[in-house]
């Protein structure tokens, strides 16, 4: 089974802090994703990466950056945390089969982040 592990289940930080959310997958997947989940809005894509050191912006990248130095690890960084970034953050990974985009994404259990 694919395992996607997010380093923290719950995190409380203060406004203005730099926050790091870590995600590791153990199935050698090329693609990795960061979403935020808010009630009534579903999942919104922040950033994704299809290879080491590669990244692309999703729908809501403002205020966030990412890092992918190794294939198995994808980090989300809140450069200067604000209260409107309080949310559930979900990491996911998927296999890339050379043009075949029908592979499902596998999710971690999420990090519930509160910015005070």
């Amino acid at each position: 089974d694919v395992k996607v592990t997010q380093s923290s289940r719950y995190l409380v930080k203060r406004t203005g802090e730099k926050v790091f959310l870590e995600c590791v997958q153990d199935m050698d997947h090329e693609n990795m994703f960061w979403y935020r989940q808010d009630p009534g809005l579903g999942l919104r894509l922040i950033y994704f990466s299809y290879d080491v050191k590669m990244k692309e912006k999703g729908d809501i990248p403002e205020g966030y950056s990412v890092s992918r130095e190794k294939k198995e690890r994808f980090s989300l960084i809140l450069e200067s945390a604000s209260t409107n970034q309080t949310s559930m953050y979900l990491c996911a990974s998927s296999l890339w089969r050379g043009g075949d985009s029908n592979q499902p994404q596998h999710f971690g259990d999420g990090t519930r982040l509160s910015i005070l």
Partner: protein
Amino acid sequence: AQSVAQPEDQVNVAEGNPLTVKCTYSVSGNPYLFWYVQYPNRGLQFLLKYITGDNLVKGSYGFEAEFNKSQTSFHLKKPSALVSDSALYFCAVRDIRKNNDMRFGAGTRLTVKP
């Protein structure tokens, strides 16, 4: 751009009754369609997907979904609901021409009552 609509925020059914969770989609090309389930304090779990072929797709835990191209729908169904099916369900769509651009619906909370 692709999009997904889940018209019901909440669906309530009695245990043993059939359930349907609705999903409609919009893509400019042909779609790949997915259903995921989320239990409390957990990430999303993949249930089933439609790629091509038979319009009725069978997935995990006895769930199935019917692809209807003319109605651009992909409703999730189960013949006999269990209390343990109570969870948040998400429909997702991807244009087959576009990798990594999956769009999720807002989610439907299913409650199955004993």
